[in-house]
């Protein structure tokens, strides 16, 4: 029996402890003290973060190769925990209305989902990947329907659930076939077995079924339809969680599967993903142009960004190690940067939603008068999402662009540039509303401290990374799964 490396799983253990603690403590909290749940959750996340710091630079394998701790998984775990902190900060105020009494369950489910995401980053086995994926999804289905009295919220949960379960069934079918072909569920062993086997239509079909499952998770076209409906209906912090942590978890899984298990089949999935990414960014951006609801706009924008993140994976087909590494780093960096800018935008939406719960874009008219700081922060997030230098989003796009150019697929780079211009229109139209239109109701909104902190964290990352993009060079290529 293999000894268990408890240190390697310490962050996950702390997180599980925290979620059990939240569930139990909540039982004894009087109605007035329910807000303590958020403090407890935040402490748990910070504890896990602390444990994670002790693991920096380590490379450990435990549970028979099923759980691997390396720079890749560390990077994602830091991301997930940082996102968790921000989401908890966002939720603290949001939950103070009708949802007050079920705060304990909310944080419990949120932590379970984050625990799944943490496991996802380390999962090097199809079985583990599947369990982690479900662990991210199942609590998220429930969270999406958390506003029980709001028919839009229940509808969001239903759609999310049906499409989610359906795509995991599709993915599982692919996994079962891969298991049959490779006779193993370990990603590295699958990679070796598939390399030996060569081209086989069954293998490509299975890969495609598995990619469809991840396509749902990262909301790539045409697996994206649930996303706008669900984001709009779900509580805003949950939408933020879905568009950031859940999507990043999907990418964590996708990158591992693509490079570890299917690294020998790049010519089979590369071109397909390239076309998928083009469709994703184009449809996301074009449809975003017509939106009137800010959350829906951000949903389509997050679809478009999934396209940008997928693009590096689309250019690796038949490329050498250097390009593969570059593409990998580009995708990874994009996910990191996107997470913070999108989270920041959602945090602003939560803040504005305090007064205007319908989240219409027209609610942002004159925001610069009502809350100058909030408007400025939102402007920064929007500009970063649009890829305006010198903010973080620009560098992310630049890296992806560079990967496309260096791999000789300049047409993809051109499509991306055009898409960025389309994106600029709708991001800046929100900016123009904030700065160039009068406010209907000029009274200030009042942003509570946790939200200020959440926005500040995101803003600092977006601006700091924008000014010091070199930051990435310290770890992004180092976080290369592919030992090339």
């Amino acid at each position, binding site marked *: 029996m293999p000894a268990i490396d408890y240190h390697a799983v310490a962050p996950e253990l702390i997180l599980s402890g925290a979620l059990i603690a939240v569930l139990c403590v909540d039982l004894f909290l009087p109605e007035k003290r329910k807000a303590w749940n958020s403090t407890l959750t935040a402490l748990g996340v910070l504890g896990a973060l602390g444990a994670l710091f002790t693991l920096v630079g380590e490379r450990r394998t435990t549970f028979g190769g099923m759980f691997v701790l390396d720079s890749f998984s560390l990077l994602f775990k830091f991301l997930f925990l940082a996102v968790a902190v921000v989401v908890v900060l966002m939720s603290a105020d949001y939950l103070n209305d009708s949802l007050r009494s079920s705060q304990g369950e909310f944080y419990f489910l949120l932590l379970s989902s984050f625990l799944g995401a943490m496991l996802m980053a380390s999962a090097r086995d199809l079985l583990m990947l599947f369990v982690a994926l479900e662990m991210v999804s199942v609590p998220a289905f429930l969270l999406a329907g958390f506003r029980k009295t709001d028919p839009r919220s229940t509808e969001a949960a*239903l*759609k999310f659930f*049906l*499409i989610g379960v*359906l*795509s995991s069934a*599709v993915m599982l079918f692919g996994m079962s076939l891969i298991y049959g072909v490779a006779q193993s569920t370990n990603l590295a062993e699958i990679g070796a077995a598939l390399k030996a086997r060569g081209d086989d*239509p069954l293998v*490509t*079909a299975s*890969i*495609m*079924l598995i*990619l*469809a499952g991840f*396509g749902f998770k990262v909301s790539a076209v*045409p*697996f994206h*339809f*649930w996303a*706008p*409906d669900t984001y709009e209906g779900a509580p805003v912090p949950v939408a933020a969680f879905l568009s950031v942590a859940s999507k990043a978890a999907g990418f964590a899984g996708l990158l591992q599967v693509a490079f570890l298990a299917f690294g020998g089949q790049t010519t*089979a*999935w590369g*071109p*397909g993903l390239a*076309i*998928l990414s083009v469709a994703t960014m184009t449809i996301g951006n*074009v*449809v975003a*142009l*017509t939106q*009137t609801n800010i959350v829906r706009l951000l949903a389509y924008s997050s679809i478009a960004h999934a396209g940008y993140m997928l693009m590096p994976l689309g250019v690796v087909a038949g490329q050498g190690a*250097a390009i593969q590494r570059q593409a990998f780093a580009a995708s990874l960096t994009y996910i990191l940067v996107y997470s913070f800018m999108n989270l920041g935008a959602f945090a602003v939406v939560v803040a504005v939603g305090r007064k205007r719960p319908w989240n219409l874009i027209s609610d942002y008219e004159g925001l610069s008068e009502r809350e100058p700081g909030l408007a400025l922060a939102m402007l920064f997030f929007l500009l970063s999402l649009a890829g*305006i*230098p010198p903010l973080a989003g620009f560098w992310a796009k*630049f*890296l992806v662009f*560079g990967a496309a*150019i*260096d791999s000789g697929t*300049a047409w993809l*780079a*051109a499509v991306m*540039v*055009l898409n960025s*211009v389309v994106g*600029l*229109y709708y991001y*800046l139209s929100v900016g*123009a509303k904030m*700065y*160039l*239109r*009068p406010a209907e109701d000029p009274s200030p909104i009042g942003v509570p401290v946790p939200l200020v902190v959440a926005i500040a964290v995101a803003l600092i990352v977006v601006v700091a990374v924008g*000014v*010091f*993009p*070199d930051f990435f*060079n310290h770890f992004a290529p180092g976080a290369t799964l592919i030992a090339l």
Partner: protein
Amino acid sequence: MVAVLLAHEEAHATAQAAGFFAGNAWLIPALPFVAVGVIVFFGKRFRGKGAEVGIAATSISWLLSVIILVTRYVGGGGPVVLRSVRWFPLGRDLGLGLGMRLDGLTSIMFVVVTTVSLLVQIYSLGYMHGDRRYTWYYAALNIFTGSMLNLVIADNLMQLLIGWELVGICSYLLIGHWWEEKPNSDAAIKAFITTKTGDIPFLIGVFVLFAAARTFNITEIIHQVEDGNLSHVTLTAAAILLFGGAIGKSAQFPLHVWLPDAMAGPTPVSALIHAATMVTAGVFLVARLFPVFEASPQALNEVALIGAFTMLLAALLAMVQDDIKRVLAYSTVSQLAYMMAALGVGAGNAGIFHLFTHAWFKALLFLGAGSVIHAVHSNNMSEMGGLRKFMPHTYRTFLIGSVALAGIPPLAGFWSKDEILTEAFRVGARTIPAHGSPVVGSIVYGVGIVTAFLTAFYMSRAVHLTFQGEYRGHGRPHESPATMTGPLWVLAGLSLVAGFAGFPGWQKGFGAWVGVGGETRVPEAHLLLIAVSVVVALAGIGLGRALYARVPARDPLLRLGWFHTLLVNKYYLDEFYMRGIVRPIRDRVSAAIGTRKGGGILRYLQSGDVQRYAAALFAGVAILAFLFTKF
């Protein structure tokens, strides 16, 4: 941050030899940005609400600019100073840096930008006094100044692009400064959309150049062009695409429509951004990448013809405007077109010389108009008249600006305009070798002469309608305070003398300092051509005087009949864009993808029916299967 950047510096050898001021020219764009930080965070605590911070920073930048220009370039030029820090290395050969390329062109632009910015900021002390967003206004002006200076100093296209976008954003923000009134924010949005239309080809052009040269560095790109490493087709494509951006930014036909509407912004902003600096960015871009354009006669001809067409088109429109700022706006479009046309016929130095002189008298005219508007609270010349008595300083300076613009010697406009016309004539007459076609040279000369006549006419009209005759407005106008008239006199002085910088025959004159595309052609005087220009200008002024000396009850231009109607309606271009392009595209796009109102693909797919989503999911798997297995 600066310190960190310097720590990683990869200084070029020239930087050491350049001397302190030139070596540290990066301070010039950096200072306004520092000021922005101070204004945004502490501005309201200052006595002057942040204005003094901006003015102080810009003054230092101005001083540095002048020192650099005088010590290095006046009297025959100095070596190009290159210096850069790597900002973000990437991949095999991608990489971005912050860099500076200090040459004659840069230092001239520095002086233009900082001087006008400084004067405008001083002027705004009076003009914007008591504005509700006063502090923010100064912050925006300083972001603009810093960004424009960054655009000018940039040694690579990415950095240039950053400046390019930032000045654009500042421009929209400042056009919409008084956004409480809807037309103002509409104008800002129109400016945004129109210039962005030009920016799309511009972006693609940058990437075409990058893909071909595999570098963003301007100096290296130019070297590669000169070594003949890049194919003719690539360069033509790149040049034409890049020119798209210049058309948008410098308001050339067919994207000129945003500039007149941009007059919705505060008048000092118009003087700074929409007359003297940002709109010249397009001209600057062509000059900066002149070797790229030079390598492609087709592209050069396009530049020249667009310029020739725009100058006439806009000058005609300027004749029929009642809003004094719109007269000046169309005049700006027309004069920018002169600069473009000059570049198009290969006379880069003449074009930049005109940019230089134009900045002074056009900023002067705008600020003068602002002073008038400040006094009578209206933009319409039909509500002015007789202001000469009430506002002597404004009148005199405005008159100087007008005469300079009309092209009467020895004022500034005469020298630069005449140099452009002479060069165009000589290209047409084949007396100098040119890259473009001689026919194009002749066209530019011919249209240029007609435009010169029109320019003199509309300025004469504007001066008469505004300052002569009887006052037709409300209340009793009064002269503006010294913070406003002071800058007017400074600019008037510059408008009087700036032209001598390019005195024909002066070996070490303007052309030698600037040397667009590395060329230092000494301007030559051609007495017959000078005589023609002067006669034409005097004729224009005379006609204006004849028609408007006594303010007629009915505008005599109405006698032009249908042509007048056409002009008043701006050739129906706005309607054409709206009905012919914007609306059909918008309708078709929204019909295709579907909006909350219309039907379409989106309405079918994103129908809200989750099982249709599921069907699409399987369709996706099928498409993937097709792509993957390549049946």
